[in-house]
């Protein structure tokens, strides 16, 4: 799958951007040229040799804050994705096999979660449980989980009704064996697509919440928080909001690009597409050689 993914231009672009973002999240605080929390008398300064991207309203180095803020933003998005995956996939698969009562309850729960506006719900939960990224992100993860529930359930249903699975059941195969042997391989590609898409959604949500000042306490830097504070000083640094916005947009775009690439390379259609590309590539090489 990875090899096929990297064979696509979109897959390669997404991988490069996401690798850079991951690198920033891992090493960002170490790469910061200055202490991202240290203020100075030089407030709202334009870019210069000492502050490459200028300073904010407290005289803090913007580049250092953007780098330091990447970790919190990425971790928040990952929390959303992992939570949604765990809460959505397992009940999604089991809803096909654990009887009508379980199916009815899980479907109704999924419907309910879809009906709730998750950003508003996240704000309410942080008000109840404390203003922290984990509280907000775990809540959003649960709210987003119906996507995984529906994707994994649909894929499982298509497998469960196939003749070879029915044959396996007649032959005495257990549910666990069927899930491991047949269901998992079918469910994995759509889940991978949903995973990449959800990571993008997670970035948007974590940026939105931190933009509103929810989930993070000053002076901790986040991309959303930096964007929010920049908007208050447009007359001094009108271009400043573009920096965190570009980072957020690039990350979300890369996640969506990755989701599209996974969709393209997964399944028979994806394989055929790649095989055709390979074939065309070989023909082209052969043509040039001739």
């Amino acid at each position, binding site marked *: 799958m990875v090899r096929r993914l990297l064979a696509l231009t979109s897959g390669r672009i997404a991988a490069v951007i996401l690798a850079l973002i991951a690198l920033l999240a891992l090493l960002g605080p170490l790469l910061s040229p200055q202490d991202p929390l240290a*203020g100075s*008398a030089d407030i709202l300064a334009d870019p210069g040799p000492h502050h490459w991207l200028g300073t904010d309203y*407290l005289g803090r180095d913007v580049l250092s804050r953007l780098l330091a803020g990447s970790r919190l933003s990425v971790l928040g998005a990952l929390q959303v994705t992992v939570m949604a995956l765990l809460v959505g996939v397992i009940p999604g698969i089991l809803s096909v096999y654990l009887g009508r009562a379980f199916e009815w309850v899980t479907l109704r729960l999924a419907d309910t979660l879809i009906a709730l506006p998750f950003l508003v719900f996240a704000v309410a939960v942080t008000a109840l449980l404390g*203003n922290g990224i984990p509280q907000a992100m775990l809540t959003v993860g649960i709210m987003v989980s119906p996507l995984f529930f529906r994707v994994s359930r649909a894929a499982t249903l298509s497998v469960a009704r196939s003749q070879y699975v029915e044959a396996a059941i007649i032959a005495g195969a257990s549910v666990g064996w069927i899930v491991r042997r047949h269901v998992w391989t079918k469910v994995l590609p759509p889940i991978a697509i949903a995973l990449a898409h959800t990571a993008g959604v997670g970035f948007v949500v974590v940026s939105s919440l931190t933009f509103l*000042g929810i989930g993070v306490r*000053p002076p901790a830097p986040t991309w959303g928080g930096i964007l929010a504070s920049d908007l208050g000083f447009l*007359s*001094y640094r009108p271009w400043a909001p573009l920096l965190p916005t570009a980072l957020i947009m690039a990350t979300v775009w890369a996640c969506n690009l990755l989701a599209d690439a996974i969709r393209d390379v997964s399944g028979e259609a994806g394989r055929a597409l790649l095989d055709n590309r390979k074939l065309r590539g070989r023909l082209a090489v052969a043509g040039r050689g001739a």
Partner: protein
Amino acid sequence: MKLARRTRQLAAAAAALLALATTGCGADAGAASGESTLRWAVALPAHWDPVVSGSGAQFRILSLAYASLTEIDEQGKAVPSLARGWDYNSTGDQVTFHLRPGLKFTDGEPLDARAVKLYLERAKTQKNSALFGDLTSIKEITADGDLDVVINLTQVDYQIPLLLGERVAQITSPKAAQDPVKLDQNPVGAGPFVVTEFVPGSHVYFKKNADYWDAANIHIDRVELHAAPDSATIVSSLKTGVYDLAYLDASQVKAAKASGLDVVLQPGFNASNISINVNKKPFDNPKVVDAVRYAVNRQEFVDKVTFGYGKATDQPFPPGYLAYDEKSAGQFGYDPAKARQLLAEAGYQPGQIKLDLVIPAQSTAAEIVQAQLDAIGITVSIKVDPNWSTPFFAKDLTLSLYGTTGRESPVQTLTAHFGPNGPLNLSTPYQPEGFEAAIALARQTPLDSPDYAANLQAATRAGLASRALVFTHAPTNIFVKSTRVSALPAIPGQIHWTGVTVAAS
């Protein structure tokens, strides 16, 4: 073909309707042509009963609907309003206010001595009154005929005419006040304007009150209050003509000036502070409080919060104010090394003290306090609590921030901050030694006495011995207005509409 023509006709009709609707929904909705209309973007008050609203900054908005017993002039001296004058008795423990004849509320009720008496008694006794703490000098109110209100005092107090101004004595209709809950959302007073439309959280519309005592000098026919948008969008809203007036954050002054709008720097008595509860650890140790006092770099607040449109102050007044005590200035200058030493003497290692700084909304000032205390080894976590006022005024918090718009009576300012029951004293019932006597002397000094300034400053000096407050800076009241609106009277800390005109747009 026929269908196409019909479609075009329908489209044209829809466009015309849309244009009409847009005009109707625009900023001038409801205003008759030729009317002089002021559109003010402002945080709408939660309470419209002055007794419940209290003496905070919201009185400026309530003053549209309510007139007060007295006013102040540009020098901050008490001048007539509903009362055309007042007299003290020879011992200074009784003051009589003489009302103008023929006054009436907008519900038609007479505004007489009885109405004033009922208002003041309600402010003293109503369960949810936010003013009772300001009225401790008032023992008894009697109506002497229709026009004279006689106030007997618990102590000699020459501050009463200043006290009973816009913040404390915006007189409400006694008939409307029979239902205080209704009055709180349906203001009925005798102010320059009367409410015509009230949509909580959205807008409040007023029209001129022809029965206002000074109606001849009110030249605005209609006022529209709109819930203020985010401060970053205020300038563009005024520039495009959506509003005519708004409060302006200091960070937006540059943008407002560049847009050709009028930036008004209104004089005032503002002062911001770090509120400390000495009844709670670690501030029960005076050395920890002193460490905080030495940790504060006031100039940083001036530069980063007020963008230079303010002054550093270590008192509850801006420098230069009558009650500002020069002798106390600079007593605890910025000295972080000394602050760290004091913490060590108090037995605290760097990072050992961890505190929540509880505030109602995110602010630059809070981040500055956090950084400055962090520099001396106190770890501060900023906690935003939208319901902040409840624990603050219940004195449950350990550390907070407060910014006052001041009071017309400097004695009221001092008692609010340093008095044992002062609403801004987070350490109730603590008060500094000698404050009570000093404040009593200031009260007993007539405002025209040559000793008045000295006695006031002595009271300030006594109050500043309080460990409950560390003053940081004095912001300036900044407004932005359209050039259609004429100059606002420079009444300190207040907004007056007397003589103000709004040109047609």
